[in-house]
């Protein structure tokens, strides 16, 4: 099809998606980036003015933003890594036949179809410091002696929410990895079993190289989603206590949607985006080497 004339067919095919993306994503992004250079508060809209990089500079003297940097890293890294490990384990199990496999597979999809709002609410109730079931179970098992206020303690608030987010993300990893596992040709395993290799060796030399591309792309998607997630954090602790569970996206959300300080909130979000892009470039160059080695 290379050199005929100019073929307009692909343009026509892509056009609907293109129009939607431009109107609903690109235009708002540009408009938000422009806003990030302005003093723009909905509560004080008559004083809207261009202020250059002021918002971007102000960010660095904002305690909430400073606190959100390590929190964001922990939130994303701990969540995605745990989701991946549990999701992979589950997928490995579900890839072999056993009694009740269908049920387990169906059950483990449930968190995925549960809206984030509902997830935040049911887990808040589980973590409740006075009536929550988690404390009760742990006390009955003798693991703790007094009730722990999970969402009110500086050192447990973020971790508790990470557990919630892990729970939510297991199914997506599971299904992506399971799909990938099912494409590993079974004769490879059979040959390896005959050669007398161990389970670990088979995983290392057959399974892992095969699923690696899926692992890499799924992790990347999850990193983006977890990074951008605000509803779970907002509904569970609003970033508290203090700033102990504040992340970059949540801070941007609270500033823009709750304090209605849209210029400042946009500036934070732009920082977040830049960090994300930097991370992705790094991630891609590292993972590329990984794949080549395998």
């Amino acid at each position, binding site marked *: 099809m290379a050199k005929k004339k100019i073929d307009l067919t692909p343009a026509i095919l892509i056009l609907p998606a293109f129009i939607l993306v431009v109107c609903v994503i690109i235009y708002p992004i540009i408009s938000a980036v422009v806003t990030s250079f302005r003093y723009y508060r909905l509560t004080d809209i008559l004083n809207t003015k261009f202020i250059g990089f002021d918002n971007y500079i102000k960010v660095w003297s904002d305690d909430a933003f400073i606190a959100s940097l390590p929190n964001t890293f922990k939130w994303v890294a701990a969540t995605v890594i745990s989701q991946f490990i549990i999701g992979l384990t589950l997928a490995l199990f579900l890839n072999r036949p056993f009694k009740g496999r269908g049920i387990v597979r169906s059950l483990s999809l449930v968190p995925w179809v549960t809206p984030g709002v509902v997830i935040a609410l049911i887990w808040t109730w589980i973590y409740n410091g006075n009536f929550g079931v988690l404390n009760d179970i742990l006390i009955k098992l003798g693991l703790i002696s007094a*009730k722990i206020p999970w969402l009110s303690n500086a050192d447990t608030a973020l971790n508790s929410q990470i557990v919630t987010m892990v729970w939510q993300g297991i199914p997506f990893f599971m299904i992506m990895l399971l799909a990938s596992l099912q494409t590993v040709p079974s004769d490879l395993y059979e040959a390896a079993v005959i050669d007398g290799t161990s389970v670990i060796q088979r995983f290392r030399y057959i399974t892992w190289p095969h699923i690696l591309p899926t692992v890499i792309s799924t992790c990347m998607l999850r990193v983006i989603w977890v990074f951008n997630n605000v509803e779970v954090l907002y509904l569970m602790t609003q970033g508290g206590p203090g700033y102990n569970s504040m992340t970059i996206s949540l801070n941007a959300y609270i500033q823009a949607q709750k304090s209605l300080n849209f210029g400042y909130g946009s500036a934070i979000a732009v920082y977040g985006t830049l960090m994300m892009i930097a991370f992705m470039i790094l991630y891609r160059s590292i993972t590329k080497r990984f794949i080549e080695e395998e």
Partner: protein
Amino acid sequence: MKMKRILLIALAVFMCTSLIASGSSESKEEKPTVTYWYWEDIQGKHVEMLADRWKEYTDDIELILEPIPAGNFHDRLITAVSSGTAPDVFQMYTDWIPELVGLGALEDLTGKFDDWEYIDEVPDYMIDLAYAGYDRMYTFPRSVLTMYLYCRTDYFEEIGMDYPKTMDEFYEAAEKLTRDLDGDGVIDTYGFGMRGATNGHSMWSSLVFNAKPGFDYFDEDGNAQLMDPAIIEANQKYIDMYKNGWVPPTAPTDGFNEILQNFRAGVTGMLYHHVGSSKTVTESLGDNVVAVPLPAGEGGVFGVQEVTNFGIYSGSKNKEAALIFLKWINSPEIQSVICEELQQVPWLESVQKMDKFQDNVFFKASIESLPDSHLLPITTTMSQFTNMAWPQNFQRALLGEITGEEMLQNLNDVLNGV
């Protein structure tokens, strides 16, 4: 495979019907409509009741009731105003007045109620609330709630103390009510339900600002004055309640729902709130609960009012109709029903005198304390203070991440718009 097909057909039918159903509700009449935004409580009956009564009252104006989740009300309203899509009438807190006035969103209601048949029944302090320090009246009162202390009668008997009248007694009670009842080394009851999440500042100011006579957030020149030595000391005592373990360890993130649940379940012995929770509390605790006035500090009692108002949107096309609605919803008949249903303090004199409010100790206590309680300040910096600065700084002070003094300094800066 059949199953799938059936399911698909069922879904298709369902979708079509629901689309048709949603499209058929357009009305053809030309009569004026009034859209009313209110924050949503679970009390759906209140809305149905209002709608029915309105239909009985008049057929000429169509009323559209629009419930908005309480947690999103402020941002939804401001966003709607700045995009020109605000409702004709809406509920609002008094401290939103400066923002809304700044946006030019509030219709000037000065003089609009002069011909109202019940205007003589409105107490002066309610008119003051309606003006909220401005020289024009931009809002009309909806409800006013005054804070008091709920105490567990049985718990106080057990510790052999009277209900606290002073701050010293309050802290003493908090300490004594913190008990390990069954001797297993785990605390079973705590003294007080401290609210560390959003809106906990009203409780905080009641129990801290009473340390100095005549103290309030701002001095006469409008500068925040939280860095007062007496306040710094009182603030530290308040924070120490958490450090001493006299309040539940969940205090930093406890909101109103949590402190209410704790009090209902007997986890705490004292609860700071208003008549709005009296029904729930008595339902759970029966005669074991009593309402007493707030404890006094060196500077007397610092009572706090929670005031909600009605505003009419300046861009509304149906201002006249909206005004008729406001006059109707504040009429004695409707006010008495709303106050009873939603547990709010009536403020029209004839309604206050009704037996159902005079015979109820909780209502009576509220009505009596109405004239002397404070309104939290109304400035443009207040919503930033309420929604973010106060909870974040207070929580950090509780957790020991900053000192009480640093907390007050940060809050002072926010209030002064630094």
